[in-house]
């Protein structure tokens, strides 16, 4: 394989971004199209989330039997938390992107992606954005069903909602970075399909989609707070239902920012090493 002169890894300059915008738009459009074509599958996966929301509602209602408030959350607030957390988590977790990365790396086509002017990493982000947008549309469509299976409710207050939106963006960026990192593992090993499933499970659990982090028993709670997953779902949705307010809310957002920085550094480092590996070893 001929040596490639790789573009500076990670951050494209403003100049290149502008020039490649049409390419990214095209990628996003094609993602939407794919999603529409495979909407059957998307609906089935959505059905699984709806079922999970339903089960969580029933189980938690049974758990609350008689008690009004647990750990600062009324049953209603808890159910709203779970419903939105699961829905949000589903929108964030897109297995298709990791699989796509895996396929392209495995098939060797990543070599083309690397030399394309649009750059590999921005391309992957474009894919993710397109896919997420499509997923969000589906989620909106399914809202009535979700309302039936779970409990939808208004945010705790106007300011809670605004903070939620902020935190939502933070959570999304963190998820995107994590997806990218997990996808890049494919540069080193071929056995990624098992890994993505594992990642999905671990993420779901530690993101607090099944149980709010605050209810984790001792050691587990400490662990959960140290991991980035809680920053994707637990933080924003807790703000939404009013579990985290004022200073606590801002602290959570701050933690999100820290994670964004950390993960960006990690991803950049991985990217450099992956590039080195591809160029030197021929992929």
């Amino acid at each position, binding site marked *: 394989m001929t040596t490639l002169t790789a573009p500076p890894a990670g951050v494209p300059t403003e100049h290149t971004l502008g020039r490649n915008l049409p390419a990214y738009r095209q990628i996003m459009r094609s993602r*939407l*199209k794919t999603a*529409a*074509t495979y*909407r*059957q599958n998307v*609906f089935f996966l959505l059905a699984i989330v709806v079922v999970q929301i339903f089960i969580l509602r029933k189980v938690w209602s049974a758990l609350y039997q008689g008690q009004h408030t647990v750990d600062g959350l009324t049953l209603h607030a808890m159910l709203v938390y779970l419903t939105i957390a699961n829905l949000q988590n589903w929108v964030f977790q897109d297995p298709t992107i990791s699989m796509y990365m895996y396929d392209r790396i495995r098939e060797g086509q990543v070599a083309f992606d690397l030399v394309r002017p649009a750059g590999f990493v921005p391309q992957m982000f474009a894919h993710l954005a397109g896919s997420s947008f499509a997923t969000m*549309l589906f989620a909106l*469509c399914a809202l009535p069903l979700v309302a039936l299976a779970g409990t939808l409710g208004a945010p705790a207050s106007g300011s809670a909602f605004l903070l939620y939106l902020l935190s939502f963006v933070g959570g999304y960026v963190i998820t995107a970075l994590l997806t990218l990192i997990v996808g890049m593992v494919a540069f080193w090993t071929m056995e990624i399909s098992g890994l993505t499933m594992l990642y999905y499970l671990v993420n779901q659990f530690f993101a607090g989609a099944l149980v709010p982090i605050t209810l984790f028993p001792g050691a587990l709670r400490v662990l959960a707070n140290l991991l980035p997953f809680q920053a994707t779902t637990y933080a924003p949705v807790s703000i939404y239902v009013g579990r985290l307010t004022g200073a606590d809310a801002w602290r959570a957002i701050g933690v999100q920012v820290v994670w964004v920085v950390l993960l960006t550094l990690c991803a950049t480092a991985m990217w450099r090493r992956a590039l080195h590996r591809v160029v030197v070893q021929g992929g």
Partner: protein
Amino acid sequence: MAPVIRVENVVKEFRKTRRQEGAFGGVRTLFTRQYDTVLAVDGVSFGIEPGELVGYIGPNGAGKSTTIKMMTGILVPTSGTVEVAGVVPWRDRERNAMQIGVVFGQRTQLWWDLPLIESFKLIGKLYRVPQPTYERNLERFVEILDMAEFLDRPVRQLSLGQRMRGDLAASMLYEPRILYLDEPTIGLDVVAKESMRTFIEEMNRDSGTTIVLTTHDLADVERLCSRIILIDHGHVLYDGSVEPLKAKYAPHRVLVVKLAADDTGRVPVIDPSHVRGAEIAEQENGVARIRFVASETPVHDLIAAVNARYPVADLSIVEPDLEGVVRQIYGERVPVG
């Protein structure tokens, strides 16, 4: 004699779901799927006698594979009858399976990760072949197909030619009455093709196996088949021997004459009036291609006429090939009378 394979008015329709276009088709399309009906086979009938070696040919999408799949019991006909050695294939799959061998050129029946010999053993057990018969056939095939050197190698490590030979042997191990060969020589080099053809010929001649051969390589057909069935667009266009087909569609032969140069190095040019009953298709640098209709103009007359007037250095006769004939028929797309 009653035909061993009987196909009567067989029709096969496929329903393919039509993909809905549009950015966001919505839930509606989940419930109202639209179907396109594809008529792959439209009233095909033929009978094959025991011991025949029939070529079943047609362009891609003609309905060849579909017919074969109905004859082997993989697909159920939409209407019509298929009967193979008294068995309706799709209804009595296991009974039908015992009397047929099938070789798919593109997919192997051998076990990918196991040594070739293990596949043979499994086939022997699967088809309940008595041990002495199994050993006798194995020895025979290993010799004819020259497989001794790679018998112990896993199938995934074999070359295409080796794998095809293995597939062919596997299909005959249990001595089926009928053998279906679907593109058996595809992708093979010249030598491999020849040994496959020899094997097929021998199986037909010595064991009396009825063979249905589907192929795009018309050289296979010319070499092996006395009868061909030509199918296109789900209809049988021709069913009969090869010779009448050629005579009807390609009655012309070409006599290629190479003339010797005289002392000055000049080469004579044949005058058309000297070759009556024939047409000079082209003439260049002393090589003349003379077209004639074999049934109308006896070739020896033609040769004598040329020889009498010109210094002939060399001559040869070019026969029409099946490929040209078939191409012409595909082009016309009309049943051949």
